[in-house]
């Protein structure tokens, strides 16, 4: 549930900054800042729930590498989003009417990492079926996909 806010807010913050940069609509910079701010809070809640649910998951050998990758990426993204938000805050503090291209570059990199993380998380549920009832049931009866 909480990941909705991380994914949506990071993406939308980036879109608003890029649109604001090219259209000179300075309102969008304020929208970008607050969206990133929400993402920074949400990501730590998301990591905690993620850890909790990963702990409860019936993990079979084929899933392990994806789950580990998703976990490492999650914690790394927590740190990166915190740093980016701090940077965005400093930019807004200094001059709320401008966003430097260097920040947009870093945010582009962040977006790529978020997409990768979404892919990994989706794979755990939609391909490997973690927490999916028919799969959990089958594993109880000793069948592994």
């Amino acid at each position: 549930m909480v990941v909705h806010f991380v994914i949506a807010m990071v993406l939308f913050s980036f879109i608003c900054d890029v649109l604001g940069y090219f259209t000179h609509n300075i309102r969008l910079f304020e929208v970008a800042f607050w969206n990133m701010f929400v993402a920074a809070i949400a990501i730590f809640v998301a990591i905690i729930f993620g850890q909790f649910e990963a702990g409860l998951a019936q993990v079979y050998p084929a899933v392990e590498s994806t789950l580990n990758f998703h976990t490492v990426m999650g914690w790394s993204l927590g740190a990166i989003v915190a740093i980016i938000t701090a940077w965005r805050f400093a930019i807004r503090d200094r001059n709320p009417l401008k966003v430097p291209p260097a920040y947009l570059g870093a945010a582009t990199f962040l977006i790529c990492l978020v997409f990768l993380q979404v892919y990994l998380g989706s794979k755990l549920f939609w391909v490997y079926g973690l927490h999916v009832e028919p799969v959990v049931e089958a594993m109880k009866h000793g069948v592994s996909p």
Partner: protein
Amino acid sequence: MNSPLIDSLGLRLGANGLPYEIPIHPNLVHLTLGLFIIAIFFDIAGSIFPIERPIFKFLGLPAIRAGFFDVGWYNLLGASIITFFTVGFGFFELLLANPPINQKSDWGLTASWTMLLHGLGGVVLLGMIVAMTVWRGLQRYHWRKNDSRQVQWGYLLVGLAMLGILYVHGTLGGQLGSEFGVHVTAAKLLQAGAK
């Protein structure tokens, strides 16, 4: 849809019943929900701004009331645009769904009822989100253009009610994946193996 009908589409479907590895609709849902919910919360934050102003001061976080309403408006506009894609992909993936027919969800519904309600709900919600955006736009650019509080209390109430509807609707959709295993590769492989 039944499987001969799906087969006659001539799509190259994977084990999950889709022409691609991971369903697209559930990922777009993040954007619809995130943008809509935050839009409502920021409009609420803008509306009760005089009460919370000391908190932002205490945190050393400069906040402008108009900025909160900007977040409310642009996030809602974003939600409106992206939701056309969310519902579009939702219908495509719903048509390709082939869930087990002898099962009931936690809410006592069959897969067919869950799919029907989630599909109809999607169209209704798209209409409601767009209508809210029009309503919000009228308040922002006409009716309350010069007011310090840009949104009506009635709008916020409807917004909160929408969160409840979205919760029910989202849970129905979640059940399609997590209980019926629709488009879940592992569940489909198990199903095929059991046959």
